[in-house]
C-alpha cells in the first residue's frame, strides 16, 4: 500500500476512537496481510473510490461492538440491534472521513461510498491480488482491527 496512505488512516482511527470512546486507546504494530482472514464478529465496511479503488474494514468482536455502541450512546446496549449497527456504522464513517480528508489535503482525491455492516460468525474476507494493511487498535472494550486495502486504478 502506498506509504502516504498509511498515516492518515492510523491517525484518524486513533483520534476518532480516543475522542468518541473517551478512554485510553493504544495502537498496535501495523502489518500486512493477504488472502483470507476470519472476521472477528462484526465488520463495518466503507468503500473507497476515485483515483483508487478499495475498502476499509472495521472489525471487532460482537462484545466489543456492543460496548463501543454503549459508550457512544451513553446507555447500555446489550444486543446487536438497529441502534448498535447504526452506531458502529457511524464510527466507521467518521474514521474513514477523517482519513480521506487528510488524504485530500496531501493531494489524493478519493471519495467514500456509503458504509455497510456485516455480522455473523465464521465469515471470511477474501482478497486476492489486493494486499491489506492491518492497524490493530486496543481499547478498554477489546481489540478493533482496521483493515485497509487500497489500489491505484490502472
Amino acid at each position: 500500500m502506498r506509504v502516504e496512505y498509511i498515516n492518515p488512516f492510523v491517525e484518524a482511527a486513533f483520534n476518532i476512537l480516543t475522542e468518541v470512546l473517551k478512554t485510553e486507546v493504544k495502537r498496535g504494530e501495523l502489518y500486512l496481510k493477504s488472502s483470507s482472514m476470519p472476521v472477528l464478529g462484526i465488520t463495518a465496511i466503507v468503500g473507497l473510490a476515485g483515483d483508487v479503488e478499495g475498502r476499509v474494514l472495521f472489525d471487532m468482536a460482537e462484545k466489543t461492538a456492543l460496548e463501543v455502541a454503549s459508550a457512544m450512546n451513553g446507555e447500555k446496549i446489550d444486543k446487536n440491534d438497529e441502534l448498535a449497527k447504526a452506531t458502529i456504522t457511524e464510527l466507521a464513517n467518521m474514521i474513514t472521513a477523517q482519513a480521506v480528508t487528510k488524504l485530500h489535503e496531501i493531494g489524493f482525491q478519493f471519495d467514500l461510498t456509503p458504509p455497510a455492516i456485516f455480522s455473523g460468525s465464521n465469515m471470511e474476507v477474501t482478497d486476492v491480488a489486493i494486499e491489506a494493511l492491518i492497524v490493530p487498535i486496543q481499547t478498554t472494550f477489546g481489540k478493533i482491527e482496521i483493515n485497509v486495502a487500497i489500489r491505484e486504478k490502472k
Partner: protein
Amino acid sequence: MSSVENQTQPAVDVQEQQEKKAHIDFKMVTFSLAGRDYGIDIMKVKEISKAKNFTIVPNTSPYVEGVYNLRGEIISIINLRKMFHLEYSEERKKDAVDILILRLDETVIGMIVDSVDNVVGIDSSTIQPRHPLFADINMKYISGVVEVKKKLYVILDVERVFGVDEDDLERMRIIQEAPAAEKGPVNKARISGDELEFDFITETLATFKSFYVTDINRDWCLRRLDGWKKLRKTQKKPVQLESVEDAEGFLEEYYSVYTNMLWGEDYRKQMEELVPAPTKGSIDVWCPNCGKGHDPYSIACILTLKYPDRRIKVWASDHELLNISAAPNLVLPNQGVPKYFLEAKYVQATTDGYQFVKAVKDLILFEYHDILHGTPLPELDIILARDVLSFYNQTVQEKLVTQFQEKLTGGGLLIVGDNEVLKNPGFSEVKSGKIIAYRKEKD
C-alpha cells in the same frame, strides 16, 4: 463412473411480449448462493440440471466436488460455496442439488448453486459497475451489478472464476506456504569438520539475520568463512556465530557497494552501460525491498538524466514499515549527495540536509508491501534487487527468481547483490565494471 439420477431441462426461453416492452439485450440465468442473487450470461449456460452422487476424484482442488456424467461427457462439478470461501456443509444432501452447466470456450464445467431461479432479461445499459462493498466474494469475479424488480443481482464473470487467473492464485498460494525443510547435512557424523562448521554458520545466519545460504551466495560464504576464521583467531573468539552481533559481523562484507547510499559517479557510469536502450515511451523499474529508498532514487535520477524524453516509472516497496515510511521524505546528509544530483538540481537543501525535489519523487511509487503477496506490475525493463534474494529461503528464492524472469521484458535487466550469483537459464550474464547483471534472453 457412477450412474446419476438427473432431470435435465433446456435453458428457459424469455417471453417475446416482455422483450418488446423493454429494450432487452442481455439475458442472464439467475441463481442464489448464500443469500445473494447472481446472474450469468445466458450465452455461457449450456443447461440447467439437478444431480446427486458425484464421483469423487482425488488429488483435485478442494473445490471440485466430483465429476458427473452428462450424457456420456464427463465434466467436473465445482462447489461454488467452497470456491468463494462461503460456508458450506460437508454432509451430502440426500436430494439432488441444482447445477448450472456452463460452456466456456471449449470447456464444459458444472457448478453447484443453492438454487437456480429464472432467466431474467435486462437492458445492458442498466448494469452498474461492481462495487467494493461486495466482500462476500472477491470483487474480481464480478462484472457488475444490476437491479431488476427490486432484486439486486451480482453478475458473475465466469471466465475469471474458472479461468487464467487461477494460475496466479496458485502461484501466490505456493509462495505463501511455509518453507519446505531445507536440505540439511545427510549424516552429521560422516561429514568433515569443515563442512560441519560451515553448516553451523549457515544455520546461525538464518536464525540471527534471516540470511539463507544457497547457490546464490554460497561461493561468497565459503570465501568469507576463510577470512572470518582468521579474524576470529586474532580476536581470540570462536568461529561460530553466537549472537546477532556475530552474524552482523560476518555479513559486513556481503552488502553491495552504495548500500543505504546514493550511487556514486563510477556506479552510475557502469549502470548506464547496462541499461537496455528504451524501446517504448516509458522505462519501468521495480525495486523490491528497497529499504530506505537509495536505490530507487539513484536509478530514477540516472535514467532521467540519460533519457530525458522518456517517462521513468519506479515501483519501490519494502516490508519493513520504518524504512519505507521514511523513503518518500528521505533526507541525505550534505556529504551524501554525489555531484551529479546537485548539478541536475534533483535535490534541494533543507535544514537537516538534502531532500529530493517533487519532480523526482513523482517518478517513484513507494509502497509498504510484502513481495510474497504477489505484485501486479506491467512488463519491466529493469529489476533492481540488490541484496534481496539472500534473505529468503531456497524455495522462495527460486520462486522469486522465476517471478523476476516472467516480469522482465525480453532484453530486460536484473541486478542482484554484488555477492550474489544467478545460474538460471534464460538469463545471460553481462558485466560493466564491477556490476554483474543478468539480461533476460529475448524470445
